[in-house]
C-alpha cells in the first residue's frame, strides 16, 4: 500500500514527530484561550443571546463554554454512532466490501 518515498527527499517540518507534538500542544493552548475569552466575555461583558423566549436554551446557550462542550460532545457522539453504523458488536451494519456492487 504505502510506497517507499524517495531517499533524497528533504525533511519537512511536519515529518518530525516532535514538531507534530508541538503543533498539537499549541492547539490545546488555543482551546484553553478561547474558553478564557468566552468566560471573560460572559462575566465582564455581555453575550448576545440567540433565543429570547425564556426557554431552557436561552439560559444555557449564554453560559460560558456551552458551545465548546456542545461541539466536543457532538463530535464524540458523531464518531461513536458512525462507528456503530459501520459495524456493531462485530456484526456489520452498513459497511460492505469495496466491490460489493460489482459482485
Amino acid at each position: 500500500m504505502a510506497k517507499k518515498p524517495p531517499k533524497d527527499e528533504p525533511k519537512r517540518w511536519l515529518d518530525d514527530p516532535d514538531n507534530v507534538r508541538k503543533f498539537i500542544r499549541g492547539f490545546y493552548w488555543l482551546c484553553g484561550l478561547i474558553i478564557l475569552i468566552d468566560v471573560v466575555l460572559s462575566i465582564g461583558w455581555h453575550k448576545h443571546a440567540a433565543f429570547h423566549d425564556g426557554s431552557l436554551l436561552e439560559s444555557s446557550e449564554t453560559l460560558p463554554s456551552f458551545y465548546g462542550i456542545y461541539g466536543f460532545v457532538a463530535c464524540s457522539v458523531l464518531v461513536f454512532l458512525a462507528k456503530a453504523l459501520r459495524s456493531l458488536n462485530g456484526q456489520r451494519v452498513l459497511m460492505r466490501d469495496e466491490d460489493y456492487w460489482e459482485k
Partner: protein
Amino acid sequence: MSFLAASEISAHPALALLIGGLVTIFIRGRYAGALMVAAPLLGFWVVSQLESGSSSIISCFGQEIISVNVDKQSILFGYLFHLAAFIGGLYSFHLKDPWQISMGLLYAASAVGVAFAGDLLSLFLWWEALAITSVFQIWGRKTERSENAGFRYLFFHVLSGLLLLAGIAFRYASGDADPFALVSLTELLSGGDAGAQLILLAIGVKCAFPCLHVWLTDGYPESTPTGAVFLSAFTTKAAICVLARLFPGAEILITIGAVMAMFPIFYAVIENDLRRVLGYSMINQIGFMVVGIGIGTELSIDGSLAHAFNDVLFKGLLFMSMGAVLHRTGEMRGSELGGLYRTMPLTTAFCIVGAASISAFPLFSGFVSKSIIMAEAAAHGHHVVWLCLLFASAGVFHHAGIKIPFFAFFAHDSGLRPKEAPVNMLLAMGFAAFMCIFIGCNPDWLYAMLPGGAAGYHPYDATHVVTQTEILLFSALAFTLLNLWKQYPPELKSVNLDIDYVYRKGGRLFSSSMATFWNGLNEKAHAFFVGGVAGKFSAFTADGPGIMAKWLSQPLQALGFYPGKSDEETEADLEKQATTGIHPVGLTALFGILFLLGFLVLAWIYPILFPPLSI
C-alpha cells in the same frame, strides 16, 4: 408564432453560454478551452446589464411563455452560475473531450435558464435541459461504473422532470387564473393541492431531499475530476433557487432540512471515497438552505440564498482540490491517500481555505451566511432544529473541514509523490479561494445582492465570533483526541449501504425475477409449441397418409380392389403410394367421391340432429 413578441430584453441571459456550448461541439484544443473561460465572462457582463423588473415573453401556439423574468434573486443566481462556469471552465481548460466541454457550458446555460425562468413552462424546459446536459460529466469518465452511475443519475432526474410536468398539468387543470405563475405555492401546499405537492417532490429530487438523495452521492464521485466541479455548482443550487421562489415558509421544509443537515454527516465520517464525503457534506449544506427557506422570513431566505452562493464557491473549491488529487494520482480513496502536502502544497492550502469556509470559520465565507439561518431558527423558536443545526455545524467541520484535508494531504504517508496541480487548476482554485476569503471579510458585498439585503444582520458580533470559534476548536479537539486514542474510525476500503440498497437490490431482484418468469414462460412455450405440437403436427403430416393407407388396406382388400395380391403386399403398396404421394387415378377418384358423399350425408343428417329453433 413570433419570438420575442413583447420583449423588453433583447437576448436571453444564458445566450452567451448556449452559443459557447454549441460552438465548442465543433472546435478543439486551446480554442475550446479559451471559449470555456470567455463565454461565462461574456454572460457575466450580460447579467450585469440586466434591469430588475424586465422580462421577455414568447408566444408559442397561442400560449404566452415568460421566458425571462429579471429580479434580484435571478440576477444573484445569474452572477453565481456564470462565476461557477468561469471557475469550472478555467479548471477544465486542459480538457480534450468535446462532450464534456460543450455539455459543461450547456449545463451552465441550463442553470442560468432556471434562475431566470419567468413561469413554470419555461422552468420545465430548462429543468429538463439541466438533467440531460449534466449526465455527460459522469459518463465522461468512460468506465463501466460511471456509465451505470450515470444511468442511475439520469433515472432520478428524468423522474424529477416528469414529476414537475405532472405538477404543472395539475396546476393547469386547477382552473386558476394564472396557473403557470412562478409564485409562492406554500398556501396551496398546506391546502393539500396535488399540483403543489408534485412540484415540491420534483424540486425535492434535485435538492437531494432525504431518500431522494442517492443520485448525488452515487453519481458525483463517479464523475470526471473536472465534472464534479460543474455538477456541484449547478443542479442543487438551481433547485434551491426554485424552492425559494415556490415554497418560502413551507413548514415541512424545516423538518426536511434538519434531517438533511443531520444524517449525511454520519455517512461522511465512515466514507472512504473523499469525493463521496463531499457529496454527503453537500446534502448537509443544502439542509441548512432548506431550513432557511422553510422558516420563510425575508432574512432567513436571504440567508439560504447567500449560503447557496457561498456553497458553490467553497464546495467547488473542495471538489477542485480533490479533483486535482484525482487528476494527478488517479486515486480518491482516503485509505490509499495521505501525505500529499509534500508535493502539492498549493492544492493543500486551497483545500484548507475551502475547508475553513465550509466549516464557517470567522473571516471565511460560510461564517457570514450559515449563521443567518442559525440565528433565524433561534429567533423563531425552533429549538430542536437549532440544536440539530448546531450539531451539523460541528459535524461538518469534523468531516469536511478536517477529514478531507487530513486524510488526503496529511495523515499517514502513502508514499505517493504526485506533481503539483496544473497551472489552470491552481488558478481556478486560487480564484475560488480568494472569493471565499473576500466574501468572508466583506459580507456586505454579498448581502447587497440579496433580495432583502440581509437587512439588520451583522455577522461579526463578538459573541458570534467567539462562540463559533469555540465550537469549531472543540470539534477539532474531539477529532485530535479520538485520533490520538485510536478511537477514530480508520479509512477502510469499503462501501456503505445507503437508501440505494432498496432500489439497486430491488432493481436486481426485479430484473432477475422478471427474467426467471418470462424466460421460464418462454422456455415452456418453446418446449410445448416448437418441441411438442409442431413436431407432432409435422410427424402427422409426414406419416399420417402412410398410417391411413395401412388402416384402409384391409377393407380395400376385402372389397376386392387388389385382386391377386396378399394382404401384406397390398399394405406395402398402399403405404408406398401414400408416403410418396402417388396414387392410381381410380383410388384418388374413390376418395374424392367418398369425401363428397360424406358431406352430403352430413348435410342430410345435420338438420335432423340439430333442428333449427322455431321462435
